[in-house]
């Protein structure tokens, strides 16, 4: 059996395993790739290169590509409580894409949320955040999109419920909630902080998920307060509260690692956040990742106070019995990976003891982890992740409730108990 020391694991991966995979699969690839034309990429200008980078950070491709479809050709369906939105074709096809658009048309869409013909766009397109992007950056993104191969693909119309399909309601919504304007830097803060704020509030559109939305789907705040993602059964924790995913007491390096590799010794990204890391954040330049980390850390740096979780004054006997049942399930199904002490194995199996995602007020994500399992995203820094098995085909709702209640209250963790009903409610809601 082969053992290797954790600290050298990442480097070891990069050097040997990728190479091995390449060599092993070479025969296969040669067989299959001969059909593909291996045309060299045409020379690209600096602006187009920079635009390609910004397009990654804005994750335009993530939304504007259907599952298994042509990149940027749109057609992806986004389900929300207002109906189903279908993304548009951003390739430079003249009939079905944005081939006839000018720089000015594009700016109007990104900055003002208006289509080329003046139609008001729905905020399922996060122009409410992209409005903060500078003209220069918008032009670079446009130059990159125009350099893509055109794909002829018309996408079906949105399917929006009454009354949200009303144009005038959208106009009212915009007057109430849409504030147009490029990011203005705060002179009292460092350059890195401002760059981070620009990216987090603007292109990174973190607020699109990390916020509480009101009845009309508007963010309640600009402070990354956290909330359940519309149309998805996931809770995006607050980035500005140390009770949730604030990183005030984290080292900058650790925040950078979480954003760019998807795992650290204390946390792991899952579900939609894993997708954001894979599609977008792993490509952050070193300076930009650092800048984002500086800004995120500052959001909770001065916060002190109680630790997350609920306090039980004294644990009653019946409560202890209840948790013991969960403990038995933990021993049988979970301990092999997460350990008797709940400390896991750094970078491989996340610690559950002291894990902010586990003791967060909303138990939604923890329940989902146990029901569905998952893998952290594959990234350059973590190309061959270990995975967590799903348990919904093995454990009944009551058992999931017991084991989740247990991990929320073992090893010094304290958080509310979970009921079978909560487990039932956490099912479904995937794309």
């Amino acid at each position, binding site marked *: 059996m082969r053992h290797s020391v954790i600290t050298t694991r990442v480097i070891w991966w990069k050097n040997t395993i990728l190479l091995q995979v390449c060599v092993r699969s070479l025969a*296969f690839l040669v067989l299959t790739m001969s059909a593909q034309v291996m045309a060299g990429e045409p020379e690209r200008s600096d602006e187009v290169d920079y635009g390609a980078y910004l397009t990654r950070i804005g994750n335009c491709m993530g939304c504007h590509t259907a599952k*298994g479809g042509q990149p940027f050709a749109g057609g992806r369906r986004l389900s929300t409580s207002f109906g189903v939105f279908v993304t548009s074709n951003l390739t430079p096809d003249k009939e079905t894409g944005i081939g006839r658009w000018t720089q000015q048309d594009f700016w109007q869409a990104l900055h003002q949320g208006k289509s080329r013909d003046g139609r008001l766009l729905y905020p399922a397109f996060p122009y409410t955040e992209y409005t903060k992007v500078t003209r220069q950056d918008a032009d670079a993104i446009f130059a990159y999109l125009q350099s893509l191969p055109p794909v002829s693909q018309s996408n079906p119309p949105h399917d929006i419920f009454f009354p949200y399909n009303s144009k005038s309601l959208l106009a009212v919504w915009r007057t109430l909630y849409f504030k147009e304007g490029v990011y203005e830097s705060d002179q009292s803060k460092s350059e890195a902080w401002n760059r981070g704020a620009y990216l987090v509030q603007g292109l990174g559109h973190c607020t699109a998920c990390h916020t509480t939305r009101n009845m009309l789907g508007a963010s309640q705040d600009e402070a990354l307060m956290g909330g359940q993602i519309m149309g998805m059964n996931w809770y995006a924790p607050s980035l500005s509260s140390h009770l949730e995913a604030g990183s005030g007491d984290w080292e900058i390096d650790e925040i950078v690692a979480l954003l760019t590799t998807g795992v650290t010794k204390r946390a792991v990204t899952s579900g939609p956040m894993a997708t954001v890391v894979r599609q977008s954040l792993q490509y952050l330049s070193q300076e930009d990742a650092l800048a984002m980390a500086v800004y995120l850390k500052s959001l909770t740096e001065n916060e002190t106070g109680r630790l997350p979780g609920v306090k039980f004054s004294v644990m009653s006997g019946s409560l202890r019995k209840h948790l013991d049942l969960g403990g038995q399930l933990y021993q049988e199904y979970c301990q092999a990976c997460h350990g008797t002490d709940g400390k896991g194995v750094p970078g491989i199996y996340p610690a559950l003891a002291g894990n902010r995602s586990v003791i967060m007020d909303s138990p939604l994500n923890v329940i989902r982890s146990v029901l569905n*399992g998952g893998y952290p995203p594959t990234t350059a820094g973590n190309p061959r992740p270990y995975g967590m098995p*799903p348990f919904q085909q*093995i454990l009944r709702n009551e058992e999931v409730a017991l084991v989740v209640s247990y991990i929320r209250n073992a090893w010094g963790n304290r958080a509310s108990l979970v009921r079978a009903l909560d487990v039932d409610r956490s099912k479904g809601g995937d794309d």
Partner: protein
Amino acid sequence: MMRFILLLFFCITGVANVNGSTPAEVPDTMDDRVKACTICHSAEDKVGRDAYYPRIAGKPQGYLFNQMRNFRDGRRYYPPMAILLENMSDEYLLEIAQYFSSLQLPYPDPEQIQMQPEEIKLAEHLIYSGYPERDIPACSACHGDVLMGVEPAIPGLIGLPRAYITAQLGGWRNGGIMRGGKPDCMSEIAKQLTESEVNAVAKWLANQSVSGKPSSFDVLSSELVDRCSQTILENGGAE
């Protein structure tokens, strides 16, 4: 000897548990990386609470890779797997496919299903001769002389239980499984089969015991390669 090794193993793990600590090292193996898969996919096909979990060990690498991409990219539908594969790169999928393909686990004994002589004749005719007039080539022309598949992307037909074969062929016949999105060679063939043909073939195949290896690609005639090019060429390549 085996008992002794096992005992030793239990002693070691037992001690680790008593100490209440987690081993600081996890074996750096694929075996450990795919624990999330082997909870359902074991040496034998098995009936789970929600679905039928097929054996994937020993199937051709290209075939497994294609299927994993189909699940990930929404072309084959089973949400629990789509969730696991959602954020995996093609490189990693290929490595996982390679791993499962290389596993040499013993196959379960063949089933013992009673068959009428005319059923056996029907099955063997389909499998070794086909019906050119109905545009059905012999199954063996694509799945290999010994029906153990053709590298890299055509799976073997022996070692699969009857229920699985019937379900897959049935899925194609009524358009249920849309592997690869567009109709492909296998779905076209399955659609031509009658229900009694499906039943006969499924029984016959499940009754055979596994022997022999997957054939190499060059046994396929160029006509059949053309016919399946969507699955075994274009779709089979990494990005």
